[in-house]
């Protein structure tokens, strides 16, 4: 959160810098099968975000100490390409990517039937090619489609979307300026068929009413994104 600053992210008519209303989602498109050598893969373009997820496995878990006798482990690696933002990102794992990898694995573990593959590992690689805002949400959503594309049994897919607060106004699906200069954001991982929540983070402060409003925006946005996920899986590429 970058504080108020001088940037006016939303005008008096409620129109945002990119022309959206406060409850509108950025354009989303998803395609599957973008990494032919992977067991499953997906690419999501969400506003200016561009993210590829690839799934390999189930395979034998190595090193052996990470094996679980009763279930598979999800080995998630979230990474931002050095050229994905205006400031070059130093290649390799950092605190942020470790944290996002962890929360992504935990969100996905709640839907994947890991108990069907004891002692195995399912490797999920998430690569951010171009970052605008909400890359963790794009990553989780792409990984979810890639897992489904790989034929991994799942009780539902995880849709992740973030709403937040800019100049005391709650807006849906933050863009870069809103993420940088806004006061709060609330990324959520939602199971669209049941409305259950598998992941929630909050950065900044929201009043109970604002929290409810952001929650409602996320739930509505999840339906829109889920439709695109299903379209990609049912009629998508190879």
């Amino acid at each position, binding site marked *: 959160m970058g504080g108020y600053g001088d940037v006016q992210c939303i005008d008096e008519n409620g129109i945002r810098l990119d022309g959206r209303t406060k409850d509108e989602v950025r354009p989303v498109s998803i395609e599957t099968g973008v990494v032919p050598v992977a067991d499953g893969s997906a690419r999501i373009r969400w506003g200016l975000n561009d993210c590829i997820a690839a799934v390999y496995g189930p395979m034998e878990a190595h090193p052996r100490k990470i094996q679980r006798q009763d279930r598979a482990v999800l080995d998630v690696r979230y990474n931002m390409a050095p050229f994905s933002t205006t400031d070059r990102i130093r290649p390799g794992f950092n605190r942020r990517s470790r944290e996002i990898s962890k929360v992504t694995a935990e969100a996905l573990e709640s839907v994947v039937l890991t108990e069907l593959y004891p002692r*195995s590992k399912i490797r999920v690689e998430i690569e951010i090619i171009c970052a605008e805002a909400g890359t963790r949400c794009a990553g989780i959503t792409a990984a979810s489609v890639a897992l489904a594309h790989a*034929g991994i049994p799942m009780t539902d897919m995880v849709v992740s979307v973030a709403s937040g607060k800019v100049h005391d106004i709650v807006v849906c699906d933050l863009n870069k300026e809103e993420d940088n200069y806004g006061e709060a954001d609330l990324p959520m991982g939602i199971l669209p068929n*049941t409305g259950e929540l598998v992941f929630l983070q909050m950065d900044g402060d929201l009043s109970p009413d604002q929290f409810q409003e952001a929650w409602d925006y996320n739930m509505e946005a999840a339906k829109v994104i889920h439709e695109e996920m299903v379209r990609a899986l049912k*009629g998508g590429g190879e």
Partner: protein
Amino acid sequence: MKGGSVARLDNMSGDNGADGPRRSRQAPLLVAPGDDLGDSGEYEAGHGVLAINGRLRALKQGRMNNRGGTVSIEPRRTSYVPRPSDLVIGYIEGCTSNIWFVDIGAPFNAILPMSLGPSKAEFGGIRKVLDIGDAILCRVQEVEENHSSVVTMKGMGLRAIRAGTVEEIDPHLLGRLIGRGGNNLRQLKEETECRVVAGDNGRVWLDGDLDGIINARDRLNALLTEAKIEEFGGEV
């Protein structure tokens, strides 16, 4: 669920396959993980379907089938899970002094003990019999609870593959390759004059002269493309 062809038992007319196998020309009923397939009271959950709180839910992406009151999903992609007596084609991945480790396309490598191998080897000479990278035609002898498996090369026709090529297809498409009563496979063998051995793990050994192998390979790819189009819509 909005948009697309939604596979729900209560949306399906009798003609649409709720009471029996669907006609092949009908639009496929595609599902994605989490899709609600209807009430679990009347129907049994088959492959790729789970009953949760009285509702049937799809676990995989694929085509829904309803045969004999059992709802199942023919998945678009599958990984091979070994079962005893499966005929499989594997690659030697490693060895110790008396065991080979074989990649059979499953989550775990299988083991091939020297006692079940093609011949005995002198101490330290195991790689003279089967070396790393060799392809073998073998049979799954045993699968343990923890998914590790043992394969054998003792049996008729089981051998090291020294000629031809090995192609890979999704294991769930094997039925389509083999055809009813083995018709498709027989036709493929006759027309290409190749030896064709389809392993249960989706690996297919093609052996013959070069033109025959290329022809068989093209036909295999055409068959798979056709299968995908048929499963997921479009004209064949």
